[in-house]
């Protein structure tokens, strides 16, 4: 077990948080997408994390286990009979993305990323201190 392994663990956390950030931006960018290749409006995506034992160091790494679609939150329905994509009753199905939730999620990801960064900084300082011992 050395300090480089501690840095690796923090790096796994940073990688996981950047994947989360990527999916959040995808959600925000597609908040108004009404057509997708699968048909129907865009559905919000959710990232799930899982703890993985790093066999090298015996420490707990973090991994993205899956990116799934949010099918429980209902799609927004908007009355707009003039729209070409409206159904026979004049309703338009819009993506189930809530920009407020996404922005809070984004902030959470940023904070977690910063915390991992602080852990790396701290490990780095310890490494410098041990290098000072041979002087």
């Amino acid at each position, binding site marked *: *077990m050395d300090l480089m392994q501690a840095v690796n*663990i*923090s790096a796994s956390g*940073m990688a996981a948080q950047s994947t989360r950030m990527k999916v959040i931006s995808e959600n925000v960018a597609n908040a108004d997408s009404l057509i997708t290749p699968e048909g129907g409006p865009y559905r919000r995506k959710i990232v799930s994390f899982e*703890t993985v034992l790093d066999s090298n160091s015996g420490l707990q790494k973090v991994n993205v286990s899956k990116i799934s679609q949010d099918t429980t939150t209902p799609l927004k329905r908007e009355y707009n009979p003039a729209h070409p994509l409206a159904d026979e009753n004049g309703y338009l199905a819009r993506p189930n993305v809530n920009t407020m939730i996404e922005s809070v999620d984004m902030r959470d990801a940023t904070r977690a990323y910063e*915390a*991992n960064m602080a852990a790396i900084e701290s490990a780095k*300082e*310890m490494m410098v201190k041990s290098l000072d*011992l041979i002087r």
Partner: protein
Amino acid sequence: MPTNVYGSLVNRMDYLVQRQGVVSGNIANSTTPGYITKDVTFESLVDKNKSNMSMSVTNGTHIKGAPTTSGGFAMTEDRTHIRHDGNSVKMDEEMLKLQETQMNYRLATKLYSKSKSMQLLALGKQG
């Protein structure tokens, strides 16, 4: 017995590096559902080392000198305040642990170089 000082310090530094890794793991998993906070404790083997590490005493009122510690580590889990997603990481506490580990490491390396310079001084070289 200056070598014993080095031994204890290396042991201490080993522990701090181990702890740094565990705390990093906690921070990395701060948003993982079902993750339980982990920590390592330093199990001192003070009594075992006492006999060969105490200062000689010529008077009963003299301070015996603090024994050095060395020992194994034990993993612990913190199951207090588990959130709804099953995660029990408290970010503020982890940040505090990070700082604490860093400070203790700084102290250990400082002590290491101090004892080295003391030894050099005794050998007649300027430490």
